[in-house]
């Protein structure tokens, strides 16, 4: 320790930078340490924010439905804006999704019933392959428009957690109901549509 003291006492008469005590030791950490602490805080904030964002579930009832574009398997381009003023049912499905099959027939039935009343049914095919998707549509004889969710953009916009999920959008563009998982019955689909049709 003596050597250390000797050496540093030799420095004492030189100009001592701020924050450094007479014995040559800094009383507060160097700017480098401050930078690191700030970096850590920034990281915590970013992770915290993404945590909050992940904790949000799918787009909730009462929120404005996110706008999207869907190109159907037949090549037709549909956008949500075009459908303003109409009730829209958006159903996310996939051919490899077994629970989706539980509601497929009921959805088609509901379409045949409510389609003539002006309700739009849109099937969004989530992360699937075209041949298998077409086979699924044939199997359940689905006649309403379906299209692939390219780049999973629509799924990300609606923040879905899995398939199947269904969103019913009212005439004013607000979401009136959200169904996670398959509809338990035709009556449930009808109830959801009725809520949107009769404000």
């Amino acid at each position, binding site marked *: 320790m003596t050597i250390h003291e000797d*050496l540093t006492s030799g420095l004492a008469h030189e100009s001592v930078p701020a924050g450094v005590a007479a014995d040559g030791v800094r009383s507060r950490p160097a700017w480098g340490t401050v930078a690191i602490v700030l970096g850590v805080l920034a990281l915590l904030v970013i992770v915290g924010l993404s945590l909050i964002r992940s904790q949000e579930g799918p787009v909730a009832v009462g929120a404005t439905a996110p706008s999207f574009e869907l190109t159907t398997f037949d090549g037709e381009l549909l956008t949500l804006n075009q459908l303003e003023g109409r009730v829209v049912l958006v159903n996310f499905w*996939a051919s*490899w999704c077994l629970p989706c099959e539980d509601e497929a027939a009921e959805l088609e039935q509901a379409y045949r019933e409510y389609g003539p009343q002006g309700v739009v049914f849109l099937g969004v095919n989530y*992360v*699937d*392959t075209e041949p298998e998707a077409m086979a699924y549509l044939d199997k359940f004889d689905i006649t309403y428009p379906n299209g692939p969710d*390219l*780049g*999973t953009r629509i799924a*990300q916009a609606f923040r879905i957690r899995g398939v199947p999920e269904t969103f019913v959008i009212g005439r004013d563009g607000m979401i009136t109901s959200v169904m996670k998982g398959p509809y338990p019955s035709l009556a449930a689909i009808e109830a959801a549509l009725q809520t949107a049709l009769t404000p």
Partner: protein
Amino acid sequence: MISLRRRWLGALLCVGFLLTAWVTGARAQGGGPTDDEVNRIAKGLYCPVCENVPLDVCPTQACIQWRALIHEKLAAGWSEQEIKDYFVDQYGDRVLATPPARGLNWLIYLLPPAAILAGAGVLVGVHRSWRRADSGPPTETVGASQDPYVKRMEAELLARRSGGADAGEEG
């Protein structure tokens, strides 16, 4: 005019060829792209549905379909880049095993080297500030090992040999 004999030979050859092809090409996909070629491309992709599972090892039905899709595209003559672009179009950037180098993604490639360089810089700075200007000449020591215990023993050995010291028993 082709002689009858040649015609027969030709027919025989054709049949023989077909027979051989049928017997040896017992794979389900016939002469198309091999599973290995499919897997090579699938290795660079991740399952679009399951988290963090590479496409070549994913066992789910959906992944089997996707590998079949790759097989189909390869058979149709698509290149690896075209197939990967197709997957990105369909399923988004996260289907690639390495983030494409555009936009924000540059950050992932730049930050680690930058951080390591910064760390090296800190190290150099630390060296400079912790060195004393009047450090003496480096100690020249005999022998390679700097193990203090070994040095002590060697010093003892030296003392024994040179001084003839009967310095008792060592412990």
